[in-house]
Every structure is written in structure tokens, then in C-alpha cells.
């Protein structure tokens, strides 16, 4: 068969023969095959453990990011209430980045779940085939002459060899996917280390490197929209903060028009978040 299946079949057949052709004596073939099978099964177990570890790591990062999202949202609301629009914007930009990362991690965790399931299935199939091979091996030993044994062994070994090659393929794909996810997890860790998800109120004024990078990373319209929405929810309309501050000052009837007095009057919106 010429198409896709033909090419793949040829490659797999070559691979399986290579796997089995190393020993010439039937007894040796049996022992060699069996030893290889058991080794491969150990590898699969290790592969599953690696996938589980990677998954746990991503899940831990997810938990941290979820906390950051809540914290940054709270801070943005407090900043809006206090008329500190720049601070609110910074908090929302960081929240935006955290949310984007969170979505990515979510997809990756479910992909890892799939990989884990696939490897577990593969392990089960391989285990069943190895057990069947072990039984057959004893029958072959007891019943056949060396010449016949060679044929029977290669028949039985082909079935297991093929499964071993297939498990190898499943493992490789799982490892590749896990590597990609490790890279993603590392990227999140770097953002974390750079203080991206840190408490914005703990930062000094002035734009730092993180702020500049964040502005590139986060989608500005989304931040604008959310800021406007937040202001609406907090009953501040969508007017720029400076205008609001002077409005508030006038409404309060305070003689001083200094903008410093306004944030002090405004209460953090803790009541609204209860």
C-alpha cells in the first residue's frame, strides 16, 4: 500500500526487526526479548511519573495565578475607589497577564491528563502482551525443536515487539508534549520571579521594566474596558480620574481644591467585595 499507511508500516516493520534481530539462538531471542520488554515497561512507568510531576507543577502554578488574579482585582478596585487610576491600570494589566497565563495552563493541564491516560492504557496493553509472551515462551520451550521454536518465537515476539515500538512512540509524544509544557511553566515562573504578579501597591512610583513589558504583553483595550466597567460598578462613571477627583472635591464642599485630599476621603471598596 502506497499511501500514508504504507510508509508508516514499512518504517515500523524495519524498526521491529531491528529490535528482534540481535540474537540468533532461539533461547537467547526469548531471553533478550523478554528482558527488553520488562525494561520498556519500567520506562513507561517512569514516563507516567514524569507526566504526573509536570501536571502537578502546572496545577500549583494555576493555584498561585488564581490567587494573584483575585488579589490584583481587589487592588484595582481599591485604586479606582481611591482615584488612583494609574495604579488601577497597572493592577488590571497584571491581572490580564495572569488570566492569559491561566487559560494557557488550563489547556496544558488537560493535555497532560490525556497523555497520562494514553500512557496508562499503553502500559496496560504492554503488560498484558508481556504476560502473554511469557506464557507462550514456556510453551515454545516445552514443545518445539530449535528450528520450529525460532519461527514461533519470532511470531510471538513480533506482536510484543510491535507493541513495544508503539509504546515507545506514545512515550516520545508524551515526553515532547511534557517538554513544551515545562517551557510554559518556566515562562510563568520567570514572570513570577520578575514580580509580574506581585502586589502593585508595594511598588514604587514610576514606570519600571515590568510595567513596560506588561504594556506590551497585555491587551490594552481589554484593560481600558475593564477599568471603565470597574468605575461604573463603583459608581464613578467613565470620566478620567482627575476630573472625578475635582468633582468629588467640589461635591464635598471642601475649600481646598488640592487633589491630594480626594484619595484620602474615598473609601476602599471593601464593602462591595464582601
Amino acid at each position, binding site marked *: *500500500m*502506497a*499511501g*500514508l*499507511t*504504507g*510508509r*508508516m*508500516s514499512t*518504517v*515500523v*516493520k*524495519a*524498526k*521491529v526487526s531491528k529490535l528482534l534481530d540481535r540474537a540468533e539462538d532461539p533461547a537467547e531471542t526469548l531471553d533478550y526479548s523478554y528482558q527488553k520488554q520488562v525494561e520498556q515497561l519500567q520506562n513507561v512507568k517512569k514516563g507516567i511519573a514524569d507526566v504526573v510531576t509536570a501536571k502537578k507543577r502546572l496545577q500549583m502554578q494555576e493555584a498561585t495565578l488564581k490567587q494573584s488574579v483575585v488579589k490584583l482585582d481587589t487592588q484595582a478596585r481599591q485604586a479606582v475607589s481611591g482615584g488612583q487610576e494609574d495604579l488601577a491600570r497597572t493592577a488590571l494589566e497584571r491581572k490580564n497577564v495572569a488570566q492569559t497565563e491561566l487559560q494557557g495552563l488550563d489547556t496544558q493541564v488537560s493535555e497532560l491528563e490525556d497523555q497520562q491516560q*494514553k500512557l496508562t492504557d*499503553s502500559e*496496560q*496493553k504492554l503488560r*498484558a*502482551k508481556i*504476560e*502473554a*509472551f511469557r506464557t*507462550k515462551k514456556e510453551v515454545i520451550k516445552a514443545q518445539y525443536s530449535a528450528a520450529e521454536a525460532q519461527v514461533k518465537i519470532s*511470531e*510471538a515476539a*513480533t*506482536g*510484543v*515487539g*510491535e507493541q513495544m*515500538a*508503539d509504546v*515507545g*512512540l*506514545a*512515550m*516520545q*509524544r508524551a515526553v515532547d508534549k511534557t517538554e513544551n509544557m515545562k517551557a510554559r511553566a518556566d515562562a510563568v515562573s520567570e514572570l513570577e520571579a520578575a514580580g509580574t504578579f506581585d502586589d502593585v501597591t508595594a511598588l514604587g512610583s514610576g514606570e519600571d521594566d515590568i510595567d513596560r513589558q506588561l504594556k506590551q504583553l497585555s491587551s490594552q483595550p481589554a484593560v481600558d474596558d475593564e477599568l471603565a466597567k470597574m468605575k461604573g460598578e463603583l459608581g464613578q462613571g467613565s470620566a478620567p480620574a482627575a476630573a472625578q477627583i475635582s468633582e468629588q472635591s467640589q461635591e464635598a464642599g471642601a475649600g481646598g481644591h488640592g487633589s491630594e485630599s480626594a484619595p484620602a476621603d474615598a473609601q476602599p471598596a471593601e464593602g462591595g467585595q464582601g
Partner: protein
Amino acid sequence: MIVRVSTEGQYELQDGALERLHELDNACQAAVDAGDGERFHACYEQLLELIRGEGSELEDADLRGSDLTLPPPDITLEEAQSEFSAHGLIPD
């Protein structure tokens, strides 16, 4: 005949399904050659459905080898375009 879907399992297929399998296989290869990912994935999915639908899955302990081996269901167009061995689709 016995067909293996890589990373999934082995299926035993009646010879009647062979012609259809052959057609779909060639159609998939044509899509790969044309570099049409969408057509390739649709076609390959059809091919897999044929095997899963018409074939009966072999027992895990069955030691028979396969007559045909298909690439894994999550194969990418790039992988299908490459030689399967050269880019690691089949590990050493």
C-alpha cells in the same frame, strides 16, 4: 487483516473494508502532498473512523503482528510530510 492505529491499538478488519481504506489512504496522501492540513485532518479522521467502526479491537494479550500500521491520531501535517523515521515519529 490486522491494522494498528499507533498509540491507540490494533483492530481486525474484514477484507471488504480494504478497498475503502485504500481509497482514503490515497486521498490522505494527496492532501499531505498538497500541503492542505485541513483536508488531511478531515480525511485522516474518516480513515480512523472506518477502522474503529468496521474493525474489532484486538485483545491486549493478542500476540499477532499487524499487517498495516497507521500513524497516531494526533499526527500533524508536518509529521505526515516528513519521513516518519527522520523526524522522530518512530523513536529508536
